[in-house]
């Protein structure tokens, strides 16, 4: 056990601010404790399913794909996903170009579509190295790209949010969108992985 674990720690400045604001809003009847707990739970439980559904739809519907690349937020709404305030840019992988997302300044991420970002996405090593040695970082994730594939790194540093549209794997002809979506992991949507056909044995890895 860490020294100090379990000991009383006073609230930090921001924790105190959060608790004070929350209690005031509840006292004034603007929100309820249940509503806040429900929103926190929904955020924690949200995974990348919405982003994966958008990708799978784009794979089976060329017209949707065009709309997705033209206006990501509107394409999300089209599938019934509410994305208030989100300005989503979807970037497409091709045989010539691989895309990857990072936020060097903090940890900007389209949470409403992908859920909470993984810890490594918020870490200093990922944020600082992804912009300057992306090929090496991707290799560490197990993604070895051909030398002739150009890498396009997107630093999500301001008002836009990003999602990668990976390439549809070969050998999936005739699959419907629901089945295709199961291949699209969070890491594929960030661009540190590409969708793989399910292996015969179960060797799913997640970080």
């Amino acid at each position: 056990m860490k020294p100090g674990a379990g000991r009383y720690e006073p609230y930090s400045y921001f924790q105190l601010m959060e608790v004070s604001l929350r209690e005031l809003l509840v006292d004034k009847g603007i929100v309820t404790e249940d509503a806040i707990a429900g929103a926190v739970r929904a955020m924690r439980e949200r995974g990348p399913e919405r982003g994966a559904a958008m990708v799978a739809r784009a794979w089976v519907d060329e017209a949707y794909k065009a709309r997705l690349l033209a206006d990501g937020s509107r394409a999300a709404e089209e599938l019934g996903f509410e994305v208030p305030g989100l300005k989503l840019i979807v970037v497409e992988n091709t045989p010539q170009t691989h895309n990857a997302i990072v936020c060097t300044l903090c940890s900007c991420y389209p949470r409403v579509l992908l859920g909470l970002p993984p810890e490594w996405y918020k870490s200093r090593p990922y944020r600082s190295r992804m912009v300057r040695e992306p090929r090496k970082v991707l290799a560490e994730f197990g993604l070895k790209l051909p030398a002739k594939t150009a890498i396009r790194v997107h630093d999500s540093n301001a008002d836009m949010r990003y999602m990668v549209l990976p390439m549809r794997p070969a050998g999936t002809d005739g699959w419907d969108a629901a089945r295709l979506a199961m291949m699209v992991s969070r890491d594929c949507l960030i661009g540190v992985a590409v969708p793989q056909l399910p292996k015969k044995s179960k060797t799913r890895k997640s970080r």
Partner: protein
Amino acid sequence: MSDGKLVPVPNYRVGDRVTVRKAYPLGHIRTPYYIRGHTGVVERVCGAFPNPEELAQQRDGLPAQPLYRVRFRQEDLWPGYRGANADVLELEIYQHWLE
């Protein structure tokens, strides 16, 4: 987008070469250090957004600043960059940081 106020006309268009100002003001700055002083090409115009440097000071950030996605060649950014020479980096720069 700005609320009913005039949205400034963007000074730059897709394909224009732009240079990020090399300046080091204090405060909440969304222009990363590593890109300051570098030259790239406008990839798209994203619209106009309240200036985050002003928002961070509890002001309204108006007039909104046109926001651009600018594409930089990785080889121009990092000395000794190892990778394909077609490798690029794209990020968003507000107009007042461009020249």
